């Protein structure tokens, strides 16, 4: 599929494959559900109820989306602030994923809230006592900042005039762009701290913000590994094993810290008995800790972490672990309380469609951006050749680009 816009003579390309077709279908289906949601309301499209005011959308799209997209700020910290330059090859993809993730989160939030057209109200009414106020500010500002950060790449192709200004502002943007997510990742955990006595003691703790922050940091590495392997198949961009291994080690280190804090927290609050009660809560909690934390640590610091497949497993387990953790905090952790008088919640199919559709949109957007902007950095020879061909066909573009530089 090729679209040529004559105005700026930029050439856009997007290859169609069966997998992309499915994603496109899901995205369209999700859009259809969103239309129904906007006309008929949340009751028509979700199984949310007064016992379960938060469900799949908020847990998947917000708690999880934000965490999974959290890789961006972690890599930015490691690469740009700490200057561990060997991770540079993955920096831009990680930040792109993060940007797309946040865009999806914001879109998800817009359909999730009841009066979406009033999304701006907190900016003016200033409910600063609310943890959500903090989350709201940080997420919205961070999304804007990420857009500008991405603009550094984007303006190489469009709105070229702005490029030099963005380039200059990059250090400031990067620092704010790391500080903001640190705050709201932890705040997402703190959200649940006011629900005293409602969340299972296995998850409810004064350290909730710390746990959310650390896990959002270590899941970043897992997410980068998984998505790099996926995009490796999709666009043929290969990242070296040593980069992954390095990431896994940093991530593993944070996991160890997380685990120590978790055990310490349990010791202080005396919840070991709950953890080994082997009821639903305990089993899911142990799964989260063993498969999402312990085993990844072992992989990261053993010979398993030297193989590409071992590292892929590290990624998969880490990501699944955090997915499970976020679901646990909301569903498993609150289920006992919210269902005590017979309440119940299981997502409606429309909720699944929207969540899958949003992810599909993000993937499609990722692929589109990767194929059209210099995100992956070191382009393959094939891509370079294509660029040269492009220049030959559109000499005016090339000269303009040169003139701009």
């Amino acid at each position, binding site marked *: 599929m090729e679209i040529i816009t004559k105005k700026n003579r930029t050439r856009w390309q997007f290859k169609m494959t069966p997998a992309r077709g499915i994603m496109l279908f899901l995205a369209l289906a999700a859009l259809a559900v969103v239309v129904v949601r906007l006309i008929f309301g949340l009751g028509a499209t979700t199984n949310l109820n007064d016992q379960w005011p938060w469900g799949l959308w908020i847990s998947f799209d917000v708690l999880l989306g934000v965490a999974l997209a959290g890789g961006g700020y972690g890599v930015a910290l490691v690469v740009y602030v700490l200057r561990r330059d060997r991770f540079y090859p993955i920096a831009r993809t990680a930040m792109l994923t993060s940007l797309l993730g946040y865009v999806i989160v914001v879109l998800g939030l817009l359909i999730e809230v009841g009066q979406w057209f009033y999304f701006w*109200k907190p900016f*003016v*009414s*200033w409910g600063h006592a609310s943890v959500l106020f903090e989350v709201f500010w940080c997420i919205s500002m961070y999304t804007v900042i990420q857009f500008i950060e991405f603009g550094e790449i984007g303006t190489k192709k469009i709105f070229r005039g702005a490029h030099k200004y963005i380039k200059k502002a990059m250090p400031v943007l990067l620092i704010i762009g790391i500080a903001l997510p640190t705050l709201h990742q932890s705040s997402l955990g703190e959200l649940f701290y006011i629900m005293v006595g409602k969340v299972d003691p296995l998850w409810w703790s004064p350290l909730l913000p710390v746990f959310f922050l650390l896990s959002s940091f270590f899941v970043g590495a897992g997410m980068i590994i998984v998505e790099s392997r996926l995009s490796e198949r999709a666009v043929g961009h290969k990242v070296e094993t040593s980069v992954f291994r390095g990431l896994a080690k940093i991530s593993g280190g944070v996991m160890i810290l997380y685990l120590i804090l978790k055990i310490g927290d349990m010791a202080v609050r005396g919840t070991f008995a709950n953890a080994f009660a082997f009821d639903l809560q305990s089993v899911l909690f142990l799964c989260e800790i063993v498969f999402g934390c312990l085993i990844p640590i072992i992989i990261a610091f053993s010979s398993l972490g030297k193989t590409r497949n071992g590292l892929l497993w590290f990624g998969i387990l880490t990501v699944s672990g955090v997915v499970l953790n976020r679901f646990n905090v909301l569903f498993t952790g609150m289920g006992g309380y919210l269902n005590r008088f017979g309440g119940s919640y299981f997502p409606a199919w429309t909720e699944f469609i929207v969540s899958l559709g949003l992810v599909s949109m993000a993937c499609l957007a990722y692929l589109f951006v990767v194929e059209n902007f210099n995100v992956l950095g070191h382009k393959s020879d094939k891509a370079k050749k294509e660029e040269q061909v492009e220049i030959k066909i559109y000499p005016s573009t090339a000269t303009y680009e040169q003139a701009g530089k």
Partner: protein
Amino acid sequence: MEQKKKKGKNLSRRSFLKLAGGTGLAGATLGLTGCGQMEPEEAIGGEGWMPAQYNIPASWPTQVRGRVPIDPDNPAIVRDDRKCVLCGQCIEVCKEVQSVYGFYELPIKDEIVCINCGQCIHWCPSGAITEKNDIDKVLEALSDPEMTVVVQTAPATRIGLGEEFGMPVGTNVQGKQIAALRRLGFDVVFDTNFTADLTIMEEGTELVQRITGELDHPLPQFTSCCPGWVKFVEYFYPDLIPNLSSAKSPQQMLGPLVKTYYAEKKNLDPKKIFSVSIMPCTAKKFECQRPEMVDASKFLNDPQVSQDVDVVLTTRELAFMIKQASIDFHSLPDEEYDQLMGLGTGAGAIFGTTGGVMEAAVRSAYYLVTGEQPPEALWSLTPVRGMEGVKEATVTIPGAGDIKIAVISGLENARKVMDGIRDGHAPWAFIEVMACPGGCQYGGGQPRSSTPPSDKVRNTRTASLYKIDANAKLRNSHDNPEIKQIYEDFLTVPMSEKAEELLHTGYVSRAEEFDAKKPEDYLHEV
């Protein structure tokens, strides 16, 4: 100056902002500054209304407030919350006229005290309170071809039903009522006036036996034909239960007779008889469901025979059925009751008003004691007529001497007399009590009149009943040939073993179900 100051005070920040730029701008300004304390007017709700009696400063007492509690399980009375306007009339009638609400201690135990009289229905201005609708049960029985549906009509329904069809208050529509019932598909139409006469025979005999000492039960004897009154005694005066006549109410006498006497005569399967009664009363719905009211089943020793009276419909429900069936009530011919239990005397007819039972009883008591027909004077016993709450009279019966009697309607009046009896003030031999002021003709099941409950309507309806009596060929219960026949063919004599089994009953104390207030606690309250 003073005025100006006041005005300035009333102009709040909010109203100023409203003046300055409309609500939207005010909201936006407050919102933008982020320091706006919300004003009460900005909250959701508060757009509706409340009756004026509640829109007063919190420190002022509200005289009339709230509403009477009605249990969802109440067998007689229901309320549609959607129509309730919280006027407080139901609670007033329950408390001030019937002395039920407010005469028990809180907390309640497991019972919402209610005597099912239905006076609250008449007082309710919005029609929120009604009888519990049982029409469907009757329609179901009517549609069953194997079922013989027998219906009885109370003395007072014939002078009330016409009002539902726009006739003047008190119009006697006895004949049209029978015709309508037949058009609706009822197989047999009997008259409760017949069992009213039977009640007099049983209750009168009992009274005579109490007076002569033949029966070791205390005096005064209380009438027992009003189920609201009976329940009231069971609740508040369980110690006076022995004073209640053991004779059942006319409705509950006809019930078992239909399934025994009538079934025997007509060779019908009692299990295939469905017994309906049309009553001016909501408490009758409760009465027919009393667990002991299954004497036909007991007598026949057949648990498959249903309760003595299967369903009670109020006069209003019958009117609704007639309207629903598109029967032109006005053009109906006057028809006659079915024979066997369809003949009532004038004495039976006046059961429908306060004093009527007493008057009928005195006529027959005279006969039972002296063996002679009562004199003309007893055919118009004026001291017990009229709407006064408590009426007293002395009747001289040769052989029995002067008998002091009392007639009461409205339970607040009854309560005063009962408290007196408890204190030893009991000069009477016989006391008639009707729960509803004015008796059955203004019972909870009668048509709601165009005016609030008033003695004008009560007197007109009552006059119609006295007219039926005055015009009747037979005016004494003991003269009813069908009564003579039933004793000859079936019951032998009043208070025979068979009569005791089918026509008499016992009562239960309900004192355990709640804590009644003591007189010293409610007397100073009122």
